Structure formats: structure tokens, C-alpha cells
């Protein structure tokens, strides 16, 4: 231990960090190991830490009970659509608010910012009524369109665009490039880090979305993965192994996203707390 840390205070700190890492990983380990246990061994006293015997059936069984492939694809499709919408609309709006001068710009920006105080938890009742008026319950439109853009994304893109010099845009104009071309071929590529961060952030939130689908979806073919999981939980509450198998599969995309885009994943969160 002497090589790890220099003195006793350091050792205590290191043990603390090890404990935190353990607590951070425990639910993942528990989920995985329980998905591989037999139902009889689930709540043995003393607890079984390593599945024995290993039960590989839970994944297949769960998949046969409900159409999880469908739920998975629904969640993925909706998350991709919402992410694409946010990237495009937020960067367009941020570009407009940052690089163009027009009447009411400040007020419009404030208005967009202030939507951050209108979370779904506050507006769910009337939002449901509006979506109902549009005849959108049980449709993909109803699941996607209300979330195609939000105040945070616009704010983020506007902040980032400030760092892009106006001269660059002016030069392109003098060269005769059209405004849209300037946006797509010059501005967007320069925004890659911000777009990556916003993209991962938005995808994570969309993949996580639970309350809204719960409110407007009743048709099985439109269920998202979180809905499928919670339904499975209430109707097959004793098929523990299958529950954990479904949970593991539902977590997998987020884990992959984290491992392959770790920098953007963390950047998106870091930016959500910074003013510059």
C-alpha cells in the first residue's frame, strides 16, 4: 500500500474513492449477476454473489414474453429523431441569436431561455390536452415533436458560436456563398465539439424518457423500452431473472455510448453547469 499513497490521510482518501467506485458499480454488477441466476437462488441467505449455476435462459425467455425488439427500436428511433432535431434546430437558433442583428433578438433569446422553467413535470396536464387536440396520442409525432428543441440546447449553441470569428462568416459572404451554405459548410463543422456534447446529452435524456410516453402511449406497438420494462415489472413481478435481463439490455446502449463517446458524454454534463 505504501507505493499507492504517501501517507495515512492519503490512504483514507483512497479507500473512500474505492468505496465510491464500488457503490457506483454495484447496481450494474447486481443487475448482470441476477440476470444469470436461477429464480430459486435470487434471494438466498446468505446472498449468492456469483451466479451458480449460471442460467442463460432469462434473456431469451423475456424476449419471447413481450415484443422487446419493437420497444427497443421505438426507443432508438425516437431518441435519434429527437437528437437530430435538437442538433439542427438548436444550432440554427443559436446561430441566428449569435451572429445576426434584428429587432427583438434579446427578447426572443430571453423567451427561449425562460422555457427552462417550464419542465414537463409542470406542464404535463395541458401539454397532454394540446397533444390530444392535435390527435397525437399514440403516434410517433406526439412522442417526438414536442421535444425537438429546448432552451438549454439553444443556449449552449449560442454560447459556443460566440467563439467563432465573424470575419470567417464575412469572408465566406464576400466569396459569394449563400447563407445556408455558410451555415452547413463552415459554421456547423466548427461546432463539432459542442454538437457532440449536446447530441450525447440529448440522446441520453431521450432514451431515458418515461413520463411522457407513459401519458400518451396506450398502444403496445408504440411502447418505448422504459415503458416495456416498467410494464414487465408490474405484470411479471416474479420472473426476477427475466426482469434483470431486460434491464441489462436496456442499459447496454447507454454503456456503449459512454465508452465510445466518453469525452462528449462528460463534456455535455460539464457544459450544462458552466456559463461559458
Amino acid at each position: 500500500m505504501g507505493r499507492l499513497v504517501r501517507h495515512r490521510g492519503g490512504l483514507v482518501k483512497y479507500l473512500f474513492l474505492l468505496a465510491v467506485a464500488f457503490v457506483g458499480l454495484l447496481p450494474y454488477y447486481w443487475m448482470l449477476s441476477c440476470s444469470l441466476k436461477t429464480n430459486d437462488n435470487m434471494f438466498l441467505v446468505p446472498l449468492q454473489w456469483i451466479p451458480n449455476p449460471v442460467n442463460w435462459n432469462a434473456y431469451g425467455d423475456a424476449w419471447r414474453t413481450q415484443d422487446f425488439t419493437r420497444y427497443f427500436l421505438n426507443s432508438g428511433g425516437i431518441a435519434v429523431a429527437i437528437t437530430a432535431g435538437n442538433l439542427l434546430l438548436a444550432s440554427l437558433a443559436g446561430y441566428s441569436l449569435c451572429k445576426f442583428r434584428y429587432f427583438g433578438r434579446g427578447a426572443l433569446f430571453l423567451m427561449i431561455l425562460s422555457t427552462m422553467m417550464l419542465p414537463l413535470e409542470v406542464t404535463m396536464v395541458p401539454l397532454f390536452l394540446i397533444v390530444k387536440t392535435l390527435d397525437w396520442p399514440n403516434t410517433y409525432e406526439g412522442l417526438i415533436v414536442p421535444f425537438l428543441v429546448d432552451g438549454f440546447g439553444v443556449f449552449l449553441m449560442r454560447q459556443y458560436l460566440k467563439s467563432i470569428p465573424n470575419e470567417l462568416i464575412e469572408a465566406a459572404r464576400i466569396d459569394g456563398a449563400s447563407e445556408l451554405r455558410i451555415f452547413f459548410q463552415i459554421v456547423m463543422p466548427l461546432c463539432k465539439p459542442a454538437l457532440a456534447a449536446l447530441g450525447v446529452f440529448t440522446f441520453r435524456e431521450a432514451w431515458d424518457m418515461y413520463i411522457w410516453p407513459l401519458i400518451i402511449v396506450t398502444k403496445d406497438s408504440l411502447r418505448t423500452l422504459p415503458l416495456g420494462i416498467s410494464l414487465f415489472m408490474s405484470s411479471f413481478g416474479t420472473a426476477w431473472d427475466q426482469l434483470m435481463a431486460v434491464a441489462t439490455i436496456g442499459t447496454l446502449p447507454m454503456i456503449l455510448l459512454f465508452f465510445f463517446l466518453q469525452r462528449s458524454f462528460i463534456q455535455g454534463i460539464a457544459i450544462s453547469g458552466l456559463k461559458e
Partner: protein
Amino acid sequence: MGATATAAPRAPRRLLRLNLAAKHALFGYAILLPTVAILVVFRFLPMLQAFWISLHEYDLIRPARFVGLENFIDLLWDPLFLNSARVSVAYVVFSCVPVWVLSLALAVLFNREIRARNLLRSAAFMPVVMPMVVNALVWTFMYHQDGVVNTILGWFGIDPVPWLRSSTWALWAVIIIGIWRATPYYMVIFLAGLQAIPNEYYEAAKIDGASAWTEFRHITLPLLKPTTLLVMVMSVIVAMKVFAVPLIMTGGGPADSTRVLPLFIYQTAFEFFKMGRAAAMSVFLFAAVMVFTLFQIRLFSRGED
């Protein structure tokens, strides 16, 4: 723009410029339009409508009936509403304060050079990665009487706790999940804040022979103040909105002990179909969220332009 046009006659040049400016403004409006349209229809309109519905009795089937402020007055005397407001406040206070302390402590520790830092930091970050519903499901499992949480408590000689089945413990169970999930999130924000502190301050302190605690107290903490304020406000807002986890794990029970305000709004609206009632509660929640968000926006825009 047009710096070489000195020889050109004045009037046409001004006209051209005006034209260009108008064209730019038009383009600016055009690319902002989709965002404004979506936000107006799906954020502002609902908010206005919330006020309107809150003055009515409406069950989605019969036509809405105007009742004035009755919903609001009823709420003030409704023990269930008062209970749920109390549960929400308890949730916010008891989940946020530990999150502030823990996330700051972790950020400070991870900001140093230590063995296997990246690995440990990734492990500590993992709670953020887990989807909310999975989170609720796995923890329900872990809180089982013979589950892993009680087993670990047993190592320290603590008797099994009837987590989700007891009205004393259920809220704590939900709070622990909230802390577990939120801590690494704010740790990342604190880390970003710490990295913005110039190293020279610490070097100067080292020369003066300052202890680690003095460094923290007199350099880190003051320079981190804007980040700390922001984390405090953000975490309170997030905690006020929590309800997927209690909805899935306990449905608000046992004995209403985990029925936080957003959950109560959801159930009033979509299980009991009292839209007016629910909207009136939303107005209360809105007021609370607004106070903190205005504060957040002020923090955000400080030092801008």
C-alpha cells in the same frame, strides 16, 4: 464590409447596405422560427393553459366547468396535498445537501494525481449512465429484505431495514437513489470548475507552506463559488421534479410517504382525471421551479457581453 467603396456615391451604397441588413435579419428570423414555434406551442401555450384549466373542473369527458379559485382554496386544506408538499421538501433537502458535499469532495479528490484515477473516476461516474427506469428496477431488487443493501449493512452489524415496505424508510430509500444518481453528475460540473482555477494560486500557497485544508478553505472554495451556487440551484430544481423513481418503486406509498408533488400531480391528472386540481398543483410547482430557475438564469448570464 465595403471598405474599398470610398469612391462610390453615398446614397446607393447606403441603400445596398440597408438591403443587406434586411436580408440578414430576415434570414435570422427564418432560422429561428422553427425553434420559437415549437417552444410557443409546446411550452408557453401549455403554461398559459395550465392557469386556465386550474380555474376549472375538468375530467376529460364532461365539458369543463368554471369554478374560479376553488381548486386552489381546496388544495390549501387538502391533507394529501400538504403531505405531498412536505414530502417534496424533505426529498429536496435531504437529497441535495449530501449531494453538494459528496460531489465537491469527489471532485477535489479526483482533481489530484492518484493511482488509477481514470478508472476510479469512470466507476464513480457510472450511476449517471444507468437509465432511470432500470435504476428504479434494480434498486427495488437491491432493497429487498434479503437483498444486497441489507446484506452489506449486515457486514457492519446493522439489522435488516424494511426499506420499501415501511413508511419510515421508503422515502430514505428513494433519497439514497437520488444521491447515488446525482452525485457524479455534479462531480463532473465541479471538476470542470476546479480545472478553471489557475495552478499558480496553489503553487503560491505551497511556497507559503499552507496545509491542504487551508488551500481548500482559502483558494478552492472562494474561487469555486460561482460553480457551487450553480450546482446548488440546479440540483434543487432537478430534485423538485423527481418522480419516475417513486412512481415505479412505490407508487407514492406506503401510506403516502413517498408521494412527491410531481407524482401527486401525475396521479391526480391521469389516474383520478381531476385535470383542474392537477393544474392548480402545477401552478404551485411552477412557482417553486421559477424562483430557482430565475436565480439560475441570473447566474448563467452574469459576466456576459
